[in-house]
């Protein structure tokens, strides 16, 4: 992908969930097809697919998509595999509520660091090996559950399994080498959403496995340990499949990944600086902690909550808990789509409002969930909460690409890390101490979601405005070019390093919404909506 080549660890290209408009394919005049290439799908000059054919397994593009999202899905399954079995594990290991809460925090904390490292690994080894190394090296940690005999061991193993969530980065990175940037938004959003579904699927799979193993005669305290072998085997199987069937690039050659047309090296320190000095970065880090973060926290506590509060059987609680995570199938892409849809009429202001509405509604339904006293009401509240939170995740990544062009990778990475951090924090505060019951914890988490979503009102783009403030009237500051070029200093501008940012600025004029007609548009610019 032609663009700025950065020092290892800083690129993280493709980490963003959304880059351009939501489209299944890119038509020919906009991105010319390379007719000499012999692939099943039409490709561009870099041999990246221009079409996203969901039900195809054609090598290499669609095969990569499926290998990639299934690997990510597998890691979600193993990270949250303990959650629906907690009613059994807590008796076997004599856990207290603190131990259970701490283990939940540990399960999401590991990946804060591993996601940051994964970017560098993908730069050095390529996304295929990045994915395989992680998934194969975390397989032993999953098998380690059979050794666990006390709270400390349980927390340690869940922490180590949690590292595997960094497959998110390799998944997105790999997709960006295979799909054209005009459709990468949909591709990455779908892959992220379907991977997240693993957190729901595991609530269904693990109690089922546990039941089957018990029927063969195992005692409960052994059966759950045997059940953990299945996620472990999934890791190994996916690792082998990716190794044998996957390839880094459409043409199969890793070394060309590092050589690109006319590129310039960007300094990691500069990229980092512009990411952390942009206040919007931190607002979105906080916000994602209360959409993705609460989703992960809920994945960890919801099955046990339904089991205890409504006296359900383990597999019934698992089925209900599964619907929470499985809503990702449609809710997350829907959030991205809604963001794009409102952007068409109201531009960036529409995107911000969409995000605020979804996330706040999610918080309100979470409050309701904690207070629901009957099972049907609780299930309804939970489903509405899941749609709100997951759509908010999708909508977040509808905005992230516009915060910065130069530091996009790092901002996406920081936002992702913020999600995990938010999850750890909410579990620590609301679900670890015995001060409040899980029901009260859920309601309070809902209140915190509503409060922590308010900062989105402060996100202001001079060229597009914010939720309550219209765009700046200043002639200079109200252009997209000014905003994106301000990330480069004069020396860099003289060298022409800021050209890709200017090009992006041109394309981002769509974020003015209906006012796009009034914006000065050069005649040779490419349209942004396909």
């Amino acid at each position, binding site marked *: 992908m032609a663009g700025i080549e950065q020092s290892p660890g800083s690129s993280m290209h493709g980490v963003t969930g959304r880059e351009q408009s939501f489209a299944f394919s890119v038509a020919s005049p906009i991105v010319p097809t390379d007719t000499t290439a012999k692939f099943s799908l039409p490709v561009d000059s870099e041999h990246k697919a221009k079409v996203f054919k969901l039900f195809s397994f054609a090598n290499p593009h669609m095969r990569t998509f499926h290998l990639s999202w299934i690997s990510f899905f597998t890691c979600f399954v193993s990270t949250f595999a303990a959650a629906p079995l907690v009613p059994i594990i*807590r008796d076997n290991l004599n856990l207290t*509520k603190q131990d259970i809460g701490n283990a939940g925090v540990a399960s999401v904390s590991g990946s804060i660091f591993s996601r940051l490292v994964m970017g560098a690994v993908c730069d050095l080894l390529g996304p295929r090996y990045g994915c395989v190394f992680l998934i194969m090296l975390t397989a032993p940690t999953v098998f380690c559950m059979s050794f666990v005999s006390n709270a400390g061991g349980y927390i340690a193993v869940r922490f180590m399994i949690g590292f595997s969530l960094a497959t998110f980065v390799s998944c997105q990175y790999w997709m960006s080498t295979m799909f054209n940037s005009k459709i990468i938004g949909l591709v990455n959003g779908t892959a992220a959403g379907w991977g997240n579904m693993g957190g729901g699927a595991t609530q269904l799979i693990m109690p089922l496995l546990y039941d089957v193993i018990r029927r063969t005669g195992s005692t409960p305290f052994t059966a759950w340990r045997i059940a953990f072998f299945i996620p472990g085997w999934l890791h190994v199987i996916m690792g082998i499949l990716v190794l044998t069937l996957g390839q880094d690039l459409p043409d199969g050659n890793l070394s060309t990944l590092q050589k690109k047309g006319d590129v310039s090296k960007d300094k990691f320190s500069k990229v980092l600086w512009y990411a952390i000095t942009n206040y919007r970065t931190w607002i979105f880090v906080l916000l994602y902690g209360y959409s993705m973060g609460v989703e992960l926290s809920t994945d960890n506590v919801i099955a046990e909550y339904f089991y205890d509060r409504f006296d359900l059987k383990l597999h019934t609680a698992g089925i209900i808990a599964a619907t929470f995570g499985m809503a990702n199938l449609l809710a997350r892409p829907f959030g991205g789509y809604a963001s794009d849809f409102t952007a068409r009429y109201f531009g960036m202001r529409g995107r911000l409002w969409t995000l605020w509405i979804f996330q706040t509604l999610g918080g309100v339904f979470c409050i309701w969930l904690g207070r629901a006293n009957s099972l049907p009401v609780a299930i309804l509240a939970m489903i509405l909460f899941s749609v709100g939170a997951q759509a908010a995740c999708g909508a977040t990544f509808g905005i992230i690409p516009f915060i910065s062009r130069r530091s996009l990778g790092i901002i996406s990475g920081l936002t992702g890390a913020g999600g995990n951090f938010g999850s750890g924090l909410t579990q620590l505060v609301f679900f670890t101490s015995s001060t409040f019951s899980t029901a009260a914890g859920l309601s309070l988490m809902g209140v915190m979601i509503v409060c922590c979503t308010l900062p989105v009102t402060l996100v202001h783009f001079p060229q597009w405005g914010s939720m309550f403030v219209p765009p700046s009237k200043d002639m200079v500051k109200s252009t997209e070019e000014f905003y994106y070029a301000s990330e480069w200093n004069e020396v860099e501008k003289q060298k022409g390093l800021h050209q890709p940012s200017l090009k992006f600025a041109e394309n981002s004029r769509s974020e003015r919404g209906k006012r796009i007609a009034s914006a000065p548009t050069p005649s040779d610019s490419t349209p942004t909506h396909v």
Partner: protein
Amino acid sequence: MEPKRYGITILGSLLLFFCMAATCYGIVLFSSLSRTLEVTASFKQGQVLKAGVDKITVTWGLNQSLAAGTDSAYKTIKVKLCYSPVSQVDRAWRKTVDNLAKDKTCQFKIVSRPYDKWNQTFEWKVERDVPSGTYFIRAYAYNSDDIEVAYGQTTDAKKTTNLFDVQAITGRHASLDIASVCFSAFAVLSLLGFFIAEKRRAKLSEQK
């Protein structure tokens, strides 16, 4: 009747109605039960029993010093293993609640027998799914509608005396441990194997 008295009468009858309705719907409060049964068991105070291995003998019967006819409604006796307060700390899923339908104190059934005037005994081997903790034993007497009407337990009202410990099985097995190590080794070795083989193949093709 004056409106105030009328209102109070209505309220009172409603309250009575709901209490009775509650009983009809099986909402029995533990505090409403009388402790008429005598329950003893063969463990010593503070003894540690191994799950799946050790046995205890439980004896239960009506307290002989009570008036005749106290037990007229008793049809069945269910003897249960119950958590002592020390095992309930920080574990809300074992909480003691007055409403017996929601009470989680006694989660393991030892035995269920039809009621008999004379003392009955049962030898119970501690099941392998009993978690580690401190316990006592309680027996509930049920009437013909299967509703609790009386109880007896091996400990005092505060549940602090005459308790015993259970040491649970670990659930671990040597075979599981070995399988786990084998699969882990397979994962790591196959990864390294593939990686080295591919690097070697790339070097060879570069040399050619």
